[in-house]
């Protein structure tokens, strides 16, 4: 389908907009942007320094393009989204790591079927090597993950059955949030009467 101009006002502002569609509005915005020649990360430092961890304020870690807005708009116009193999999910479970046995190279997990919530809870063993490198820092007892079984379809229509584990990067609540939740629970408990 050819790229369409997006009229964002036609729907709710939060409506679904694909990045390729959004790109056209970014291009027109950048194209009309006043040309600036100063390195962009200079302004970034002054605006956002306070909100960043100290390591990230090191300019070596920035990948800010030092181009003016017109050059950026031209570069962005040239970018074409690349097609990639597609993963079509067939079943999905949520798992919690119960125990890890590195000698055996296995871990045990409790599973809840997300595709059919009426299914009973199950327990299963997984190979430790199935945990992706990107998720190693999350892998511990109590970690929550999704186990997906699906079909991977390549760009030429070829399909293969595949399974994957994806560990969830859930918020970690600090002492303040936990105390607030405990206080709320205590208040709620005080209001409950048992006859």
């Amino acid at each position, binding site marked *: 389908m050819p790229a369409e101009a997006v009229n964002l006002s036609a729907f709710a502002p939060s409506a679904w907009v694909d990045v390729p569609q959004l790109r056209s509005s970014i291009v027109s915005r*950048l194209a009309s942007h006043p040309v600036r020649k100063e390195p962009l990360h200079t302004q970034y430092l002054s605006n956002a320094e306070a909100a960043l961890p100290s390591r990230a304020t090191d300019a070596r870690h920035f990948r800010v393009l030092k181009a003016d807005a017109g050059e950026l708009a031209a570069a962005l116009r040239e970018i074409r989204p690349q097609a990639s193999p597609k993963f079509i999910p067939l079943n999905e479970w949520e798992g919690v790591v119960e125990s890890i046995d590195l000698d055996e190279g296995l871990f045990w997990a409790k599973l809840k079927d997300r595709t059919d919530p009426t299914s009973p809870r199950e327990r299963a063993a997984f190979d430790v090597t199935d945990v992706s490198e990107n998720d190693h820092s999350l892998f511990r007892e109590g970690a929550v993950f999704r186990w997906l079984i699906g079909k991977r379809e390549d760009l030429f229509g070829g399909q293969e059955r595949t399974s994957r584990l994806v560990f969830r*990067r859930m918020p970690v609540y600090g002492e303040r949030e936990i105390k607030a939740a405990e206080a709320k629970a205590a208040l709620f408990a005080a209001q409950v009467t048992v006859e």
Partner: protein
Amino acid sequence: MVGNCDLRESKAQVVAIGSFNPLIFQPHWLAQAGLIGDAELAAADEGNGIELMHREAVIITLQRLRLTVLPERFMIESVEPPLVGVKDFAEKCFGLLSHTPIKQIGLNFETVFRARTREDWDALGDALAPKQPWQALLGDERSGGLVQQTMERGKRFDALQGKITVVVKALEPREKMDTSVMVNNHVDLPENSTGDTLVQHLQAYWDTDHARSEQITNALQELTRAR
């Protein structure tokens, strides 16, 4: 299996309309915040996945998510399942950026499915847009059909201000008989809402909005049954 069609793709988006500083969303900040893993950071350090980094717009493709931030729009979308990844990302992100002003939220879900036969695909189009009123205008030859339809419920099913919009769209190329169903669960927040509000909204409404969107999509898929 729902209807005479096959699932092709499921995606989700969390959209926040408010006031953002795109350049905060540096890969190293995302890594230190625990929003991305070591492999994603290493890839970003080599320039992989960073489509644009500018004070007006940031677009980064991660392992299974794509992040787009403009001064007035934050958008995290799933590139691949599991869809809950977008909720986790937004919840964790705005737990840190808790004072960011936010005016509106969209929890969006898109499903693409492929009809098994042309008759099944036409059954969906005919159910949503009966052809009889059009025959006098465009003739009764069966060629083309419903391209896109938008249906809006002007209020949500809960007490929040907002609306639910469903867009059904026939995708190109038409020979594939693919249909996209996009459900936008929109919320207008009270004045002075912030990142904290978004976190609370995700905790309270993600599951119900996702489940309802699935029900809507399943019901539309059921219409792909030639009579």
